[in-house]
């Protein structure tokens, strides 16, 4: 197999604060191949956004410290000088953000904002850039693109703004599109449309996608491979099929268990993982999920490493043996089903 398009090697990001050092990302490694969709799942504060923002070198906090490598087509982005990282941002790797309401500059016409990016990366005439912007707006499903290109962001709905963001992100045919919770701020009905749009663009342009989300439902539909993050680390990583049908880590079980399902008997209340994630200021020495895990045992005081424990490329960071996991998994994910059995 050829080299991956994007490879994150042992990335560590920490922020110095008044209370101490916050380890937001603690040794994350991941790869993204051409045309692939990688889903990164985790709850708020698990480091998924910080990881991808670091890849783009978009964290400009002077208190942030970075370690590790991010290889994009073989070059390490972490050590690249500013002007070179700029030529990759928006052209090689582009990003769309969580809140489309605030991600576009309110004082410029949306068409202009797309043109600005095109003209930054390619030597084209203003007219050519404008034509392309209109073409892109049409492609992402903005009706009347010719006219709407001259409208301001506040004249668009949230979903339409996210479409504009997507049009902007793909305007220079990037190899990688990082979508940071692209649907979180949107209505459920719009969510599906935006996800379908990303999927379609991915097929049309062959763009690899990194989809950051806290919604297992979203990655189920979109991702080829999934990495689950918890407290700044990846705790399980595998293909979409492996993650959903053979999840290995109790945290993943918890996430799967908290999906409301229509094809199962209705539980008395929605399942939730008890407790809260640990403070990133004082991470426990052992398994970060230990305190919330129902299957904790002695070894969990020792930090589990992300390993290929099954020998099939499916990685997880849990000390339980494969057999133990198999035995307790179903009742952890669906306790209500187990209880109902006589």
């Amino acid at each position: 197999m050829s080299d991956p398009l994007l490879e994150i090697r042992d990335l560590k990001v920490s922020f110095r604060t008044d209370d101490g050092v916050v380890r937001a990302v603690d040794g994350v490694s991941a790869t993204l191949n051409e045309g692939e969709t990688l889903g990164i799942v985790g709850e708020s504060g698990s480091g998924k956004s910080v990881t991808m923002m670091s890849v783009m070198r978009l964290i400009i906090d002077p208190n942030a410290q970075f370690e590790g490598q991010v290889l994009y087509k073989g070059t390490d982005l972490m050590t690249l000088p500013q002007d070179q990282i700029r030529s990759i941002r928006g052209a090689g790797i582009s990003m769309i953000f969580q809140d489309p309401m605030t991600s576009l500059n309110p004082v410029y016409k949306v068409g202009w904002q797309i043109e600005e990016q095109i003209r930054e990366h390619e030597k084209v005439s203003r007219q050519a850039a404008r034509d392309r912007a209109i073409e892109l707006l049409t492609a992402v499903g903005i009706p009347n693109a010719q006219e709407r290109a001259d409208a301001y962001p506040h004249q668009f709905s949230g979903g339409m703004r996210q479409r504009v963001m997507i049009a902007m992100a793909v305007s220079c045919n990037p190899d990688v599109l990082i979508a940071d919770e692209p649907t979180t701020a949107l209505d459920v009905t719009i969510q599906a449309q935006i996800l379908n749009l990303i999927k379609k663009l991915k097929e049309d342009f062959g763009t690899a996608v990194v989809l950051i989300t806290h919604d297992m439902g979203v990655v189920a539909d979109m991702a080829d491979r999934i990495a689950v993050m918890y407290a700044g680390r990846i705790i399980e990583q595998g293909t979409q099929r492996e993650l959903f049908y053979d999840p290995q880590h109790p945290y993943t079980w918890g996430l799967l268990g908290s999906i409301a399902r229509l094809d199962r008997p209705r539980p008395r209340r929605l399942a939730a993982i008890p407790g809260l994630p640990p403070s990133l200021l004082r991470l426990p020495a052992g398994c970060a999920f230990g305190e919330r895990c129902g299957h904790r045992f002695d070894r969990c005081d020792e930090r589990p490493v992300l390993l290929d424990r099954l020998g099939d490329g499916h990685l997880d960071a849990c000390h339980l043996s494969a057999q133990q996991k198999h035995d307790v998994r179903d009742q952890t994910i669906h306790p209500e089903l187990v209880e109902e059995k006589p």
Partner: protein
Amino acid sequence: MLTFIVRRTLWTVVVMFVITVLVFFIFFKTPGVDPARAIAGRSPTPQVLAEVRAQLGLNRPLWIQYGLMMKRIFITRNLVSYSDQGQLVVPEIFAAAPATLSLVFGAAVIWIVMAIVMGVAAARLRGKIYDPILMVLALIGISAPVFWLGQVINLITQGSLHNSVFSWVPPLGYTPFSTSPLQWFEGLIFPWITLSILYIGFYARVLRANLLEIQSEDYVRTARAKGLSEGRVLVRHTLRTSMITFVSLFGLDFGALVGGGAILTEVVFGIHGVGFLTYEALQNLDLPTIMAVVIYGAFFIVLANALVDIAYAWLDPRVRPT
């Protein structure tokens, strides 16, 4: 947009009307204030008082008095000063206006340029020692009173160093541009600096705070993610948006200064502008002049407000009427 401008202008007229009414009442109908007594001189006889009243129309109904006063200010322009009977007030103000305009325009150029340079520098150098140094300098600028600063500058440029470094500085006063552009410039350079220092400090601090706030906006992150250069992100995205605050502040301050707010600078540097006129009128309790100056000042403030609103709509499409 056009309807908005028209509507805004009409409002300006209404506001101006209300201001003239208020000013008229404050100056001429406040209990204890008797213009006739002020004009008639010391211990006048009742006959003289009555005569003066009749002459000024003070025995007529209120609204006619108001109308007469406004007629004298705006139409016939023959309102006379109390303290200097022959002096027509309105032409006097118009004669004083160029000095004030020269002073304020020049100072405004300096303060805009300097405030942007300092504000941007401080925001860019945040976390380094230069940022607090710049901000302390700005604070000193805000805190230094104009009358003190002006006097110190005068002491240096007109006194101790006048025979050496500052021999080119002309004596205090204002030389019209039409008389000698060079003297106009030389005479105004220190008044400009004195007047602008307060505003440089204030605007630099406001701009810095505003830039830092906008820097953490999502759309600035988007601009970076697009691959734009730091310079372009700053000018086109951060600075451009912060101009909304900057311009609205500027319009108000500028209007107030043109309307006579530069009084201290004018007095200290002997510039016979509108502020100086006010100063003299206040000393003599010259009601017609004070009133005319207040109305003149109010006019500029209201005008500046209207322009700010229009500029605001131009700068920020979100408030633009559709």
